[in-house]
């Protein structure tokens, strides 16, 4: 079989143009590999076999996308670029948004980010090409594809995928409240809190890290946000924040964060401060100590 020539066409479905600017860098700067590969950028959708789509799919752009899709010849691959295209990001629930993209077309590769780094977009296109090759040869698309470009890196200060230190977290829900794109959900059960960060909804604004009173949530410089469609809902950072049992009354309670205690009692060893005792029992003990 002859080698597949990927023919890329980009469609903007109401993006702010952030992703499109990064796409231009990914497409035309040599160090991102796409410019020096066999990828061809076509100016008519009917010639394309790899669609790069940005934006949350606004009501106004819906008909344009549908029209473009009718002109494509199968098989083709769709790479959704930007958190908007994956989950509508900060625009979710807006009256003018009809997305996300996978409501209207079978997406193959998602590249989360707001905007994603050109490295991520290049990786997304490369993975899209792999999927296209498999489609053309009649193979089944694998559940994951290993990272293709291993020579990319980001500076330490880059605001990438968020992470959580569960030892510092108290499940106060500040991060959940300030997140503009509903990427954080905190659930409670009998054992404690479950802290979820859905990377495909995160816009990497860093609001959560900025407002976190204990410094539990933080951004890493990882830009590993290129995932296949079947990983869309499972690319989640899950952390358990367990309750402790009070040594006095036996009730389950959320212990204060070591980080917060460290900030409040700067001259004391926080490990010696009222360990394993709930706030109610601590109040009683302190009251007895002072007034008994």
């Amino acid at each position, binding site marked *: 079989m002859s080698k597949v020539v990927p023919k890329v066409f980009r469609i903007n479905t109401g993006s702010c143009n952030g992703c499109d600017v990064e796409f231009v860098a990914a497409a035309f700067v040599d160090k991102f590999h796409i410019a020096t590969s066999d990828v061809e950028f076509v100016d008519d959708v009917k010639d394309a076999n790899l669609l790069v789509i940005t934006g949350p799919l606004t009501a106004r752009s819906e008909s344009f996308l549908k029209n473009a899709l009718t002109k494509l010849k199968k098989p083709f691959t769709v790479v959704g670029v930007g958190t908007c295209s994956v989950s509508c990001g900060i625009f979710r*629930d807006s*009256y003018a948004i009809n997305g*996300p993209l996978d409501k209207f077309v079978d997406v193959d590769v998602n590249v989360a980010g707001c905007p994603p780094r050109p490295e991520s977009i290049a990786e997304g296109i490369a993975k899209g090409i792999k999927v296209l090759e498999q489609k053309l040869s009649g193979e089944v698309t694998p559940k994951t594809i290993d990272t293709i470009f291993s020579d990319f890196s980001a500076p330490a200060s880059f605001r990438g995928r968020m992470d959580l230190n569960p030892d510092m977290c108290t499940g106060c829900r500040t991060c959940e409240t300030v997140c503009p794109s*509903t990427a954080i959900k905190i659930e409670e059960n009998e054992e404690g809190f479950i802290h979820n960060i859905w990377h495909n909804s995160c816009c990497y604004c860093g609001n959560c890290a900025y407002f976190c009173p204990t410094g539990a949530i933080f951004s890493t410089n990882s830009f590993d946000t290129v995932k296949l469609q079947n990983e869309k809902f499972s690319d*989640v950072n899950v952390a358990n924040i367990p309750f402790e049992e009070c040594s006095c009354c036996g009730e389950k309670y959320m212990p204060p964060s070591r980080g917060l205690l460290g900030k409040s009692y700067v001259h004391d060893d926080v490990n010696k401060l009222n360990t394993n005792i709930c706030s109610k029992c601590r109040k009683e003990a302190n009251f007895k100590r002072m007034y008994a």
Partner: protein
Amino acid sequence: MKIEEFNNAIKTKIAGGYLFREDKDNYGNLSAWITLQDKKDIETIAKTVKAYKGRCVVATGYKNEDKEGHTVIYHFDIDGTLINVELFTENETIVSITPILPSANWAERELREMYAVEPIGHPNKDRLFLDYSIAKGVLNEYISLSKMQLGVSDTDILWNNVKKECKV
């Protein structure tokens, strides 16, 4: 131009009467607030603003909760002084001032598509931003803060999918 001068200029021309007050912001900038009793008098205001070589900066609006109808506020600028004119419409129509002040063009079209308040006599009938599939007056709908902040909506099935597929 002094605010008092503008007040004197409209005093005899406004047929329906109006309330007038001056305001000052934290930086000492003066502005005028005019509440018209008759919404048609906005034409007279626009003509006076034009005579002073002023312009319409923007127009805002909101749906009234206590009485049926909309309040529309035009914000005019005359040589750095802000003149804010408030009017009430009970039947979702206002007299367009775009033929007098072209600077009101986009603001009035926005009022039309966001609040379904029709500027009668506006030269442009097309929508400004929103797609025709979106209902006219979409901002009249109540959108709760919780929905805005937390995405709590009936249609938000995305997190349910995350819950389904993510094994804790």
